[in-house]
């Protein structure tokens, strides 16, 4: 212990770290290690056949593509929402601010059935789209809607605090030097907010890639068309193909880890910007 930690008068190091490390290993580390172990009971060729199977490839395309589009929608509208909440005054602002976190609090299954009912051809929103021959429920469009919903708070909640901390003086200086409002926005505000915007985008994207509950109801779950990767894992599991499910899970996990790394780098950049 002595070589592990710097000296301190505060007690409880052994107990708190010991328990935390034990619990984290038991709940997170060992089960995840077991997943990798299971995936590699397959031979290399079996592994690649599973993860590069056309059905799997179609599912990655849908999962990543829909998550990307959803994150883009959230980037634009989340920015507008954050801007409006920080800069303007309007009636009911506090309620709107609280409501933004609804996708964090609302169980995904509830969101899933609610969105499906709304966007079904006879639904409140679906009936207005049917005349234009736009079908949302049971198509990839429905997957995008569900993933937009669950990723909605991220951009707002990462941009909002940065926007609040921005000093008004910089904008005043820009204005007094003759910059137009649009010019100030593009040259001063946007660069300052860029790290936060990208972090929010990446968080929203990462959350959407693994999402299951809200998508299974609205997507229709047709192989090659509206089957997301997490659903394909469940299908493999139901066929008792444990190694196959594990192999796909490893692909999904590796992808999430890369994203997590990217997000950490972005946040580091963000705090460096804010500090300097």
């Amino acid at each position, binding site marked *: 212990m002595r070589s592990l*930690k710097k000296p301190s008068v505060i007690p409880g190091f052994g107990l708190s770290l010991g328990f935390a490390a034990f619990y984290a290993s038991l709940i997170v580390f060992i089960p995840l290690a077991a997943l990798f172990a299971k995936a590699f009971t397959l031979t290399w060729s079996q592994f690649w056949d599973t993860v590069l199977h056309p059905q799997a490839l179609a599912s990655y395309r849908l999962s990543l593509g829909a998550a990307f589009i959803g994150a883009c929608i959230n980037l634009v509208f989340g920015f507008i929402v954050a801007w409006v909440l920080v800069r303007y005054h309007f009636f009911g602002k506090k309620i709107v601010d609280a409501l933004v976190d609804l996708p964090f*609090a609302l169980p995904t299954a509830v969101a899933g*059935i*609610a969105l499906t009912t709304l966007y079904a051809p006879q639904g409140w929103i679906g009936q207005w789209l049917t005349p234009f021959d736009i079908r949302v429920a049971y198509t990839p469009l429905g997957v995008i809607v569900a993933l937009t919903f669950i990723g909605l708070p991220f951009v707002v909640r990462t941009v909002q605090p940065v926007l609040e901390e921005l000093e008004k003086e910089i904008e005043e200086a820009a204005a007094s030097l003759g910059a137009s*409002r649009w010019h100030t926005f593009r040259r001063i505000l946007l660069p300052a907010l860029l790290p936060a915007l990208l972090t929010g985008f990446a968080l929203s994207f990462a959350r959407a890639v*693994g999402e299951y509950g809200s998508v299974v109801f609205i997507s229709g779950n047709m192989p090659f068309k509206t089957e997301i990767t997490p659903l394909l894992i469940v299908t493999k599991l139901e066929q008792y193909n444990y190694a196959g499910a594990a192999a796909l*899970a490893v692909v999904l996990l590796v992808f999430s880890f890369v994203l997590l790394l990217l997000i950490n780098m972005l946040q580091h950049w963000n705090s460096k910007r804010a500090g300097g």
Partner: protein
Amino acid sequence: MAGAVSTLGRRQTRINQAVSEPFWVQLALISVALIFLALFLVVPLIAVFKEAFSKGLEVYLASLTEPDAWHAIKLTLLAAGISVPLNVIFGVSAAWAITKFRFRGKQALITLIDLPFAVSPVVAGLIYVLLFGAQGWLGPWLAEHDLKIIFAVPGIVLATVFVTFPFVARELIPLMEEQGTSYEEASLTLGATGWQTFWRVTVPSIKWGLLYGIILCNARAMGEFGAVSVVSGHIRGQTNTLPLHIEILYNEYQFAASFAAASILAGLALVTLVVKSLLEWQHTRDREKAKRAAAQET
């Protein structure tokens, strides 16, 4: 004098105009934001309650009091009742170790805490099936001793613990980092024991943050679908939590009953949001008070 004041006032408005947007731009942006939020948040929320009561109050109450629904509610409460306290104990001890000491491997522990956020719920369920399922690593041993984890209540609790694992720790670490160690050190040098210091000094100063973490942890624990669905086996009246009960009813086209169950969880989400906002306002007030007190002292 009066002239000077009025020029100053005019100049102020001109500056405000220069660093703000024209009225019509503000109006347009507010409208876009509100329409977007209404479409994606408010309308689905209204739809849940409207569908729940679409066949009247009687059907609504009947679908919540039938035995399967009642069992699902109890199981959901049980899973949250076990996993939230476990993650609170973990969160507090992890935050204590991470913020009060400097040691090697700290970054690794922080990464490990964040990990469940990056894992798809389906994968979270799968890892326990691979460990404890009939064909899992420990499956044969469990079968020999007549223990059942997967397709049983312990599996549901485990999956819930996994997905709610980071919430409390994530709230406490930045908060306790900010507070530093000086109060604890003062208490210890004055002769208090370690536990006394923890209960009388640390806990009171983190109570709002702790409550905030518990609220979020609880909302996720009661609403988790993907991870629990993989380990539960969907046995009616035995391993169905409320979100799984919603799914079964929905797939059986019992929409009113399904949305009735969903309305409970939607209500829970709304309560969570209200409590969360109250805690945030409390936090801002405390901060401003502390800032004012500090300003007065100097």
